[in-house]
């Protein structure tokens, strides 16, 4: 197991969410979209220009900018 942040994952890589840094509205918004601790998240693809990324969480596709993705801490099994 190694601790990482979401935007360092490669395309197609799955990881488990361990928390969101930055105690802000942004954090709570992400939580409400289902990015809660223990959830499996997968990086589906990166946009053609390198940002944003498309992740799958709770069975749906969500796009986030790298700025937002780097707040999401994950661990890879």
């Amino acid at each position, binding site marked *: 197991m190694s601790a990482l942040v979401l935007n360092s994952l490669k395309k197609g890589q799955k990881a488990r969410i361990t928390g969101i840094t930055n105690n802000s509205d942004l954090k709570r918004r992400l939580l409400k979209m289902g990015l*809660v601790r223990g959830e499996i998240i997968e990086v589906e693809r990166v946009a*053609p220009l390198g940002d*944003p990324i498309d992740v799958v969480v*709770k069975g749906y596709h969500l*796009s986030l900018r790298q700025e937002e993705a780097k707040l999401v801490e994950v661990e890879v099994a």
Partner: protein
Amino acid sequence: MAELTICLGGNPNAGKTTVFNKLIGAHQKVGNWPGVTVEKKEGNYSYQGKSIRVVDLPGTYSLTAYSLDERIASDFLVKEQPDVSVAIVDASNLERNLYLVVELLELGANLVVDLNMMDLVRQKKWRLDVEQLSKSLGAPVVSTVANRCEGLEELQEAIAAAAKCQAQPLKIDYGPEVENALGQLTASINTPSRWLALKLLENNSQVKEWLQGWPQGEKILHKAEVLAADLGKLIADDPETYLIERRYGFINGLMKECLAKPLDLAERISLSDKIDKIVLNRWLGIPIFLLFMWLTFKLVFDLGSPLADYIDGGFGWLAEATKTGLGENWLASLLGDGIIAGVGSVLVFLPNILILFLMIGILEDSGYMARAAFVMDRFMHSLGLHGKSFIPMILGLGCNIPGIMACRTLESRKDRLLTILINPFMSCSARLPIYVLFAGAFFAHHAGAVIFILYVLGIIVAVLTALLFKSLFFKGQVAPLIMELPPYRMPTVKSVLLQMWQRASMFVKKAGTIILAGVILIWLLSSLPVGVEYASEQSWIGQLGKVFAPLFVAPIFYRAVRLLFYGDVAALHSLHC
């Protein structure tokens, strides 16, 4: 008068609009929510002799307001307390959609849960126990496939039944620490509201604002702060995070109880994912996006402009006929030169605008709009804009009016304002004749290159203006991009046409009001002082043109300047917009 008021709420992309359209039909009242430019739709239907008023709320993921849309929705649900609230849920994306449902149930809303898009659930071969879900949530649950009218009778029945009883708020067990704090807090609020106590522990700013108006407000707020701080220490987390995670925990339990997914381990790749493999491909993503933009642009202008010419011709004929019929007097001039010509010159845009809204409707309903934003976001974000801002900019090259009208698809106020403000710098096709005039007069040998440079210059100025406004007026306001990419869906003809008509009719209404007033003003400027030839050099508008003409170096541009004065309202169209 309606006997019942119900509202439709739900996550974006859950099929809310489809349900609304099916319930109401085409007789909808479309306007804006008071004071903001967020579309408000409502309408009536009757069920068993009762008239039922339906309000369609903007899509929202939770009851906490992060955007204008969400604030409107949560304000309505909390303060107006409709007789019945219907939560439209995308059943194929159940887990996340249930978050809002749980929040609504905790609020104590008289809720009917509509599991929409059940066809997708069947397609995925999921087994969903609707009865068990209803029991666990403590609310009636109906399943529908709104675009095929499946289950709508049951939905209406459930709404009527729910109106007759008063629901009890849902109680989730948050564990001893939270329950203890909730108990203390509800004891100090006179109205026993668990929901209010929960929101206070969550530090919800809307609720806090609301409470300040209460007689005991300050005291309660202070108590809530102390309790929240203590709770934070006990659970070693921020209370809101903890509560959100607990709610998802509750939903997780529901999912285990009610939903069985087939056991084949190899996950099926959906059609939507297959399309995205191409549409969002690293190399193909941008060309495909540009192709769609080019197609939209072509259809709006190539298909719309010949139709516009017919309308133009029609109004021209009508204006002449009026003037011949009424003879040489001021009334004939007001009607012919002013009102008919003026309003006509705006209505000639109608074909372009209808096609534009048709295309936007297709792009939105199919799910491509979110992809377009995904592909272009990096570039637009560097200008302080949102990925979706790109579409209005491209359309601005054809004509700024549809370009600016397309801005309504942008969610944040900052993005909308910025995109509208820079749109006029995109050189619309009406400016081409003026460019040709200038370039031909000054740079006869390089006219083509000069015109091209003018276009590029416009884009550069737009970019610079965006950067300037961003740092001047919207400093530090970086709206994050947290955007769902919904599965692709085949847009239905009816829904796309209905949307097109609703949006275009708002444009026509404006032509009848604000633009009519502007047209009369310009007619006055063109006809005064009494006795001048209409819109001649001696008229006030002609003289205004002359005042500004020296700025443009040579008197031959007097004509061009005068045309600019007529501006967006009248003359631009005579130059073929």
